[in-house]
């Protein structure tokens, strides 16, 4: 060796080789760089959300009116409380995670076990809450009508309160059947399930109740959706109405622009998937701690690495919470 290698004059300097300039193990550094790339993926999603929102800035749903439900409190409008609860659960599980890392540094096996256990429970509560949130969002609330132009119109009474279509739609006996592929052209996939009321029933019920108005998804100067006059409402429903929408999916969204639902599913879904995989990885590490793998290794650095990932999931949620629910 000595014959081949000339001296470079950088021996003993930080980047001269033979030292660890970043003072981090390979695994930990790679976890950090994975986190950077994953953060960029999430920013891609959130920036795309911002793009679409700026594109339809005058017609974007107001999150406060969309996420108003809390489990076991049916019919009590409580905007944001449940998401705030979810945020706390996640922050708290981050705290127990960092406490586990701290206990790991001190080689306190039992403390690590307990703190990891609470972290996993917190993660499970969060994923469960998100599933509930999704279910509520998909099921829908008041129902709405989609126009020919793909815009959503919603129903209000003259006091300005939202009215569910089930409360005013009249029952017109008629035969409605779900479209099936075998009865139609092959490329026309099986249609979505029938809405509980047809457009004709909603229109008839709307005309029969004089105290009903329509609001469009376009926001006025104060940021509230525009409410049409009674005459304009009837004209709008009759001329433009096309489809009764209940709940939300990737194509239709009773709360407003379909892109809102798409981004909701993609961003919270991608984040929820991260939480889920975080819980799985936490479980693996948890059992490794129990069987004493890291005790034998005399280092709990694996707990630290999985902790980094877990905190990152929390970090992403902080941004999702802001951009989806607050802003």
């Amino acid at each position, binding site marked *: 060796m000595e014959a081949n290698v000339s001296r470079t004059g950088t021996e003993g300097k930080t980047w001269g080789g033979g030292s660890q300039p*970043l003072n981090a193990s390979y695994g930990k550094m790679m976890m950090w760089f994975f*986190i950077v790339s994953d953060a960029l993926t999430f*920013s891609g999603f959130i920036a795309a959300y911002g793009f679409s929102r700026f*594109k339809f800035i005058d017609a974007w749903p107001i999150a406060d009116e969309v996420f108003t439900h809390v489990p076991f409190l049916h019919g009590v409008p409580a905007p944001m409380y449940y998401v705030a609860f979810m945020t706390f659960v996640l922050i708290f599980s981050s705290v127990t995670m960092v406490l586990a890392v701290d206990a790991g540094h001190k080689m306190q096996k039992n403390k690590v076990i307990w703190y990891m256990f609470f972290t996993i429970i917190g993660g499970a509560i969060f994923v469960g809450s998100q599933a509930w949130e999704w279910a509520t969002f998909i099921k829908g609330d008041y129902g709405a009508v989609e126009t020919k132009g793909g815009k959503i119109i919603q129903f209000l009474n003259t006091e300005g309160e939202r009215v569910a279509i089930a409360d005013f739609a009249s029952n017109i006996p008629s035969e409605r059947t779900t479209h099936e592929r075998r009865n139609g052209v092959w490329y026309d996939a099986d249609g979505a399930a029938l809405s509980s009321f047809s457009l004709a029933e909603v229109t008839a019920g709307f005309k029969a109740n004089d105290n009903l108005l329509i609001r469009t998804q376009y926001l006025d100067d104060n940021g509230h959706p525009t409410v049409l006059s009674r005459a304009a409402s009837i004209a709008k429903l009759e001329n433009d109405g096309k489809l009764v929408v209940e709940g939300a999916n990737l194509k239709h969204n009773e709360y407003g622009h379909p892109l809102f639902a798409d981004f909701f599913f993609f961003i919270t879904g991608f984040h929820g998937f991260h939480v889920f995989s975080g819980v799985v990885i936490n479980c693996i590490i948890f059992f490794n701690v129990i069987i004493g793998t890291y005790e034998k290794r005399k280092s709990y650095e694996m707990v*630290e690495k999985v*902790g*980094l990932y877990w905190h990152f999931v929390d970090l992403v949620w902080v941004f999702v919470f802001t951009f989806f629910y607050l802003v």
Partner: protein
Amino acid sequence: MGHEHKLEIFRGLIKFKNNITKIWGVFVLLSIITIIEVYVGITKPEFMTESRFLAMKLINWFFIILTLVKAYYITWDFMHMRDETKGLRRAVVWTAIFLICYLILILLIEGDYIYEVYKNNYVKFDF
């Protein structure tokens, strides 16, 4: 892999006795920020929704700045970025911040442009 932690936050204004009290202190800080955010988000004070700054409502700036504060403390204290070397910290933080700011800037400008095109052209979209 030093186990020593820097125990000061707020540039040394608060110094914790040990790492565990620091964790709880940061938790309290994050909780307070979240409670403020939720409170403002529900009450929506008028002076914040009425006034604008740089094409955005004041309330949205408020939320975004508080979010960045929270992100800072999660990264610095929960992820122990405070205890890492300068090189690792800059490699991670500056790369991400630069790329994210660039992406957001360019996409939001583009989105706003398309909004103007939709609004000012001669095709009817509301039907």
